[in-house]
């Protein structure tokens, strides 16, 4: 047994030998356009489109909160170039140093810009389960980024947290308390939200998709539970992970909840009717297509995730 595993392990290590090609200079973008959606809360709204050479991973909504003492960054964009453009945007707003980089979950469009924002004295915070799952996916995501962006991915790195949140944690950035909440498996296994207590602004990461097809990468049932709990929170302003909306809180959660409800209901029906995974993927939830952008890119994957979760009920 052991001898054979020796081979296995050496093989696995060989696979990790892939290293990002170095030498290119990351693209130098202009400062990202940010909007102050609530006092001290600055949001850059990413583009709702697949990763491309044109957008360099500027897909997620990212931004920062300015305290009296320092700045907390919330998500960093999908490449080093986007993170660096966010840094320029911060410098146009304030001279205060960045003291926290908060990563709402382990998806590449949210964390790959972090390398441009971290440095000595900057604390990096994630959900406690981020570390376990990024260990499994980080190398894969980096390789895919280089496959899709080539030299334009230069500088992008998987970051490790310096501290983690397992339940709830508050941080102080000077006259402002931010409450970080770690959630059970929902959009992903490691979703973290940030609430700016002073303005009642909730940064949801990808627990809230607007227009962009919601993505299930943790648990569809967990996602619905978490949406129920979020809906009970008192929130004055909100920042979705993708898209923007004028709907009031918590009404803005409804389209996403309806989409997930349809998936759960129709997947359960497919299972009850002895449909295979392939048959379910070709039939479940298609009525929802008109409501969402990037539907073809994400929906079939969502049904696969839901089916492989619900088939064990």
């Amino acid at each position, binding site marked *: 047994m052991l*001898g*054979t*595993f020796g*081979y*296995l*392990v*050496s*093989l*696995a290590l*060989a*696979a*990790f*030998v*892939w290293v990002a*090609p170095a030498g290119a200079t990351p693209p130098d973008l202009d400062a990202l356009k940010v909007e102050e959606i609530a006092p001290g809360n600055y949001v850059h709204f990413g583009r709702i489109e*697949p*990763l491309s050479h044109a957008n360099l991973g500027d897909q997620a909504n990212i931004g920062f909160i300015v305290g009296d003492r320092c700045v907390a960054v919330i998500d960093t964009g999908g490449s080093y170039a986007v993170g660096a453009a966010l840094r320029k945007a911060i410098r146009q707003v304030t001279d205060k140093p960045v003291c926290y980089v908060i990563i709402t979950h*382990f*998806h*590449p*469009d949210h964390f790959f810009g972090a390398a441009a924002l971290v440095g000595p004295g900057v604390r990096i915070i994630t959900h406690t389960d981020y*570390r*376990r*799952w990024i*260990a*499994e*996916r980080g*190398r*894969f*995501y980096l*390789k*895919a980024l*280089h*496959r*899709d962006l*080539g030299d334009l991915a230069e500088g992008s790195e998987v970051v490790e947290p310096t501290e983690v949140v397992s339940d709830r944690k508050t941080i102080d950035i000077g006259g402002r308390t931010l409450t970080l909440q770690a959630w059970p*498996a929902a959009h992903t*296994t490691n979703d973290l939200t940030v609430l700016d207590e002073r303005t009642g602004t909730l940064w949801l990461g990808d627990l809230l998709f607007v227009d962009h097809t919601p*993505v299930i*990468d*943790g*648990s569809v049932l*967990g996602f619905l539970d978490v949406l129920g709990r979020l809906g009970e929170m008192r929130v004055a302003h909100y920042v979705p992970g993708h898209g923007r909306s004028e709907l009031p809180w918590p009404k803005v959660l409804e389209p996403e909840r309806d989409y997930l409800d349809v998936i759960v209901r129709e997947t359960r029906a497919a*299972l*009850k*009717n*002895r449909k*295979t*995974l392939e048959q379910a*993927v070709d039939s479940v939830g298609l009525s929802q297509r008109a409501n969402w952008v990037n539907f073809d*890119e*994400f929906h*079939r*994957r969502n*049904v*696969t*995730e839901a089916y*492989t979760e619900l*088939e*064990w009920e």
Partner: protein
Amino acid sequence: MLWKSTGARLLMAAFLVLVTGVSLANEMAEPDPAKSQYWPTIRQMMFGDREILDGKDVIHVYLSTRAADAASVPVSIKGQIDQTPDHYIKNIYLIVERNPSPAAGIFHFTPESGRAQLETRLRFEDYSFVRAIAEMNDGTLYMASRWVKAAGGCSAPGGRFRIPENLIGQMKFKFMDAMLEYGKPILVQLMIRHPNESALAMDFDGDKVPRFVRSVKVTYDGKLVMSGEVDFSISDNPSFRFFFRPEKEGVLDAVVEDTYDRVYHHRLTVSEGVPLPGG
């Protein structure tokens, strides 16, 4: 044994391929299966100089060309010949060229299998060719290949929620039909609750070996129905669907072994006129 013979050589093959470094350029377009940079080494290590014939009359492999989820891509392998005592597919090798451990599984069939057919779900670490190679009872080899573009966007081959320890090894048999008829082949799905961890998960947990299912064996009425040696290119919660032909009331019996040397059993008695589980 996959690990002791072909497995070990195959793994070495992949090692060589990966360390010699393969350029990431021009991987967006669908390549020619004959010109894959990975295949010659894997082929040499697994099959040596043996000739491999075009499998179009012997074996087909089907995958969704728009694989929805790199973590679970359904694949089905279908033998195109009747399994007779004189002429039958003995083994099917399933290979995902660009996975860290390219040999996803080796499955064994007999003349009693009726048809050599198997469906499972695969993980993809990259855009890759999938190859199914049928080895006949006389040793002839036939191959079918498919190019699969899984793994775009946030889609990734692993990293889903943890399965509670007490549920690992739980199994189910599921049928697409509500009833069976004696003498007629029927499809059955074996589902196994198991993390089927890749070596990447091991990295973080610090375990000595990744924990994955390494062998599956199903008998009906004491006779072999399906067996195979598999690895972590198979998705978490491994699933296998295959035919068997019940001639009378009997017990479907599954035995599954993982790399922690745990052995799991599951049994189901089936007979004509009694509803089958699955709906």
